[in-house]
């Protein structure tokens, strides 16, 4: 499988503080890459560096083989990379359909086309029955789905999901997991930040573990679970 995203020695400093330091890994087309780590490990910062919200302080991000440092998020979107947010950001006063249409309009200027795409995406996330509702009024589970639908409507090649299951009840989480797996089957590459370990172990093809901004480990889920360093990062050191 060809590489779609290549992260090379990326560091991000805020003042003197390193939120990411020297992180490297690559994501292959069609896979699901899990990104985990304790609070404050720098996962969201890395997402921000990849999607153009921050320029990396050092290192390069290559998307589809092109160096994208310094590009703006909207340019990244047009290149085919889109993200969701840990804290959902619905366009609160717009309807659900309008939210998704905004995403779809990245690829068309015609509203009818965008409406069709959006309606289809709402079907995919099973939110079609709420098309006319105001986005700000949805319960959290549906807002998370809306985020995904809106991102999908931009027709991405790579989807970055930031804690899309956070705050959901088990049934809702399961629904999202099925959705992610379905998207994978349709060939979409995904990168997933998640705290629900059960879920991330189930869906990921590979996992990168960040700790205090550095890459601690990378491998398949089973490798990660048995990695001493990872266990220590999560449970604290076993001090004799």
């Amino acid at each position: 499988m060809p590489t779609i995203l290549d992260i090379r020695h990326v560091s991000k400093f805020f003042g003197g503080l390193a939120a990411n330091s020297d992180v490297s890994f690559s994501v292959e087309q069609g896979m699901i890459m899990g990104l985990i780590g304790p609070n404050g490990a720098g996962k969201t910062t890395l997402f921000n560096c990849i999607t153009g919200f921050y320029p990396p302080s050092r290192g390069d991000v290559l998307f589809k083989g092109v160096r994208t440092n310094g590009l703006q998020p909207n340019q990244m979107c047009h290149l085919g990379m889109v993200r969701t947010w840990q804290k959902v950001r619905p366009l609160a006063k717009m309807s659900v359909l309008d939210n998704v249409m905004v995403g779809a309009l990245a690829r068309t200027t015609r509203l009818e086309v965008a409406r069709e795409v959006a309606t289809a995406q709402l079907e995919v996330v099973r939110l079609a029955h709420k098309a006319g509702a105001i986005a700000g009024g949805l319960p959290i589970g549906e807002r998370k789905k809306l985020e995904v639908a809106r991102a999908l409507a931009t027709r991405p090649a790579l989807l970055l999901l930031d804690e899309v299951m956070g705050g959901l009840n088990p049934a809702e989480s399961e629904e999202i997991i099925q959705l992610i797996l379905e998207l994978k089957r349709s060939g979409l590459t995904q990168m997933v930040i998640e705290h629900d370990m059960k879920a991330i172990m189930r869906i990921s093809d590979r996992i990168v573990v960040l700790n205090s901004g550095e890459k601690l480990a990378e491998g398949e889920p089973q490798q990660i679970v048995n990695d001493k360093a990872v266990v220590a990062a999560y449970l604290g050191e076993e001090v004799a």
Partner: protein
Amino acid sequence: MLRIDKLNFSYGDLKVLWDVDLEVRDREIVTVVGANGAGKSTILKNVSRLVRPSSGALRFGDVDLRRLASHEVVELGVVHVPEGRRIFPEMTVLENLRMGSFPRATRQDRARNIERAFTLFPRLKERQKQLGGTMSGGEQQMLAIARGLMGNPKLLLLDEPSLGLSPLLVKNIFEIIREINRQGTTILLVEQNVYQSLRLASRAYVLETGRVVLSGTGAELLDNAHVKKAFLGM
């Protein structure tokens, strides 16, 4: 001393805590462990009245905490050392400490408490004129705890004191927590660092997605396989 019954809490429509029961007895160290986002910090915020619960009872001794404002809880002797230290960055170490004894009743002990803080954390004595914001993470954590102690707490709520600290410092902090407890302060500790905090705890609760799934003495839980599973998803 502290009794939480059937506590439910939501951020907007995002439900974070489901029917949490929790008890802290005099002189105990009680630990709440759980993964990120499990709702540990939210319990503490409910106790210190930074947030308002949807339902449930919160009692400190005979006092119904639900009737009080944040600053009144502090005056009762329940002091919350928040996650991320939250020291006042533009104030000196000494000023930060002084703020810790803002409640009128504690001001008379100010000098003595500052002495105690400097004994516990000699580092702070060296840095007393320095601005809080310019100190290292470990120093800030020490300051945050020291500042909490300035309010003569009967019950100290500690939120993730080990977060982002080097292993050596973590060990140090845990020793100090034990010392504080030995001097007579009851402690409710919220931690990610499962092993160390369980080892410290008289009793502990395991929180998973907003629910208490396990409780027992620290030692019991250390041996429980479920704990590891809850954290690593195995």
